[in-house]
């Protein structure tokens, strides 16, 4: 067996392990095997590559490994609320890596005349996707961390200008395919792609960033695919395609759950109208105290807790767990209803509740719990807003009309915890808070839930 065959066999096993890694994510029970398979696959990929005869010097690689590890470990300690930013930042790194490799290869082949049309096309894709993913993700990370204004920044003819820039970059790349020796053109592709990444994300509202991140994940995957064509490497193509599909599917799931189209997310400047639509509060909502709430809850047979973005902001998950324990102790049947886009990233609520050690078999998906809602005694809404807004079902003029929601309004009584009557992400008012059977608990979710728990615990000390 030649060395080359050995390397290809290692790549083959690595590819299989990457696929298994994602397969095992289908179930929380096997998900951790998935991580191990992924790590194994990556180690094999690296080892296989290092075995290659073309690797003549290792010191730079070793230094980069060490530095990368040194930076990577602390990056994994971020609090769970910062996971979206961290992911965005990582995509920026991934895009950068792809872009740089493409650049290096271009100049290498420019020197030795190896720039075939095929290679130049692949490099064009790789560099375009790589650099735009890089700056786009940086912008997304900035918006999520609120370093950059989260509201959509728009100007006249924005879409035309942006697409014009992209078209220009593509045209330059096409020119280079036919005249690869015109190397002065190459830096323009880089600059234009970097610029396009920035301009692409600027006009998108902060709250749409999860969808954008997923799309950028897809682009990062595709740039790895392009790199696979450049380096003539099937492992890169496969792993890149897996990533590309993942990003695509997650963004589609998010768009569907919000009942919006890709175009609307990318070019709709959603969230811009926030200010104007805070309607005139003629009607008043009924406020309640923690004591009232405790009373209502402990006398219920069944309680469904519907968490939303507010629970994440307030970091209230541990208090929520205490509440659940107190109620369960009293024989109340407590379930959690999780909307697919509650919070700010897919699966956001699940991770937070898992962190608070709430077993995942007490979490129910929207479609599974909605039929039971009319039989529920109390629906406890914790920092959720749009995902329980009945306008999505009732009001065809509402911007969220048609979005599937959790039918909290059908429960016998509703308790809603939030700090004010301000709207949520979609910037619209919520009928639910004015309903006859709704009581509002104003305040920070963590504090309010804590108070309710104290009331419950105080009454019957154990």
């Amino acid at each position, binding site marked *: 067996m030649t060395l*080359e065959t050995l390397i290809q066999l290692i790549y083959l096993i690595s590819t299989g392990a*990457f*696929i298994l890694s*994602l397969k095992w*994510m289908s179930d929380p029970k096997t*998900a*951790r095997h*998935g*991580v191990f398979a992924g790590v194994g*696959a*990556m180690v094999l990929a*690296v080892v296989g590559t*290092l075995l290659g005869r073309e690797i003549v*010097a290792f010191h*730079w690689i070793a230094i*980069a490994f060490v*530095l*990368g590890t040194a*930076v*990577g470990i602390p*990056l*994994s300690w971020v609090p*769970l609320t910062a996971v979206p930013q*961290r992911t965005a930042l*990582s*995509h920026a*790194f*991934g895009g*950068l*890596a*792809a872009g*740089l*490799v493409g650049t*290096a290869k271009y*100049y290498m082949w420019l*020197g030795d005349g190896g720039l075939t049309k095929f290679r130049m096309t692949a490099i064009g894709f790789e560099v375009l996707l790589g650099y735009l993913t890089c700056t786009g993700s940086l912008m997304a990370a900035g918006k999520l961390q609120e370093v950059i204004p989260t509201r959509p920044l728009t100007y006249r003819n924005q879409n035309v200008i942006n697409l014009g820039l992209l078209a220009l970059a593509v045209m330059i790349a096409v020119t280079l395919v036919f005249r690869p020796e015109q190397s002065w053109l190459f830096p323009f592709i880089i600059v234009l792609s970097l610029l396009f990444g920035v301009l692409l994300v600027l006009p998108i509202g902060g709250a749409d960033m999860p969808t954008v991140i997923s799309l950028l994940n897809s682009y*990062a995957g595709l740039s*790895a695919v392009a*790199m696979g*064509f450049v*380096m003539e490497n*099937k492992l*890169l*193509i496969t*792993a890149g*395609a*897996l990533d*590309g*599909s*993942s990003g695509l*599917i*997650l963004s589609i*799931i998010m768009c569907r759950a919000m009942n919006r189209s890709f175009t609307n997310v990318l070019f709709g400047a959603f969230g811009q109208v926030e200010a104007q639509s805070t309607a005139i509060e003629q009607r008043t909502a009924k406020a309640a105290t923690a004591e009232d709430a405790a009373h209502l809850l402990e006398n219920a047979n069944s309680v469904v807790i519907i968490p939303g973005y507010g629970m994440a902001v307030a970091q209230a998950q541990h208090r929520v767990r205490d509440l659940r324990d107190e109620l369960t102790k009293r024989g109340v049947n407590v379930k959690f209803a999780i909307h697919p886009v509650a919070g700010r*990233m*897919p699966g956001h609520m*699940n*991770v937070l509740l898992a962190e608070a*050690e709430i077993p*995942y078999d007490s979490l129910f*998906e929207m479609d599974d719990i909605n039929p039971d809602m009319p039989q529920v005694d109390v629906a406890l809404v914790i920092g959720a807003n749009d995902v329980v807004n009945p306008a999505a079902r009732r009001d065809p003029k509402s911007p969220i009309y048609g979005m599937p929601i959790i039918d909290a309004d059908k429960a016998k009584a509703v308790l809603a915890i939030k700090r004010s009557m301000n709207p949520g992400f979609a910037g619209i008012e919520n009928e639910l808070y004015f309903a006859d059977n709704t009581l509002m608990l104003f305040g920070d979710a963590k504090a309010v839930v804590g108070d309710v728990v104290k009331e419950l615990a105080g009454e019957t000390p154990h």
Partner: protein
Amino acid sequence: MELDFVSGLFVFMLATFIGLDVIRRVSRLLHTPLMSLTNAISAIAIVGAIIVTGEQQTTLSTVLGAIAVFASTTNIVSGFLITDRMLKMFKKREPGK
């Protein structure tokens, strides 16, 4: 072991079929960890980065390659670690209850 355009497309098509199928069946519970896992997987770009660096053809390529290796390593390390950290939290039954 050279790879022509159509063979590359072939692999790409098959892998995309697999990817779309596999991801569609990832549990909704795990979408957040999935995002960090695929983030780590996309750092497969390290393969290209290592080759460019290790070939040491020009100073430029070595420098660019080394930066790319650094960036990819960061993603690999942080991506896998954070995924595992999140997954460790998912429990079915209450521990010791």
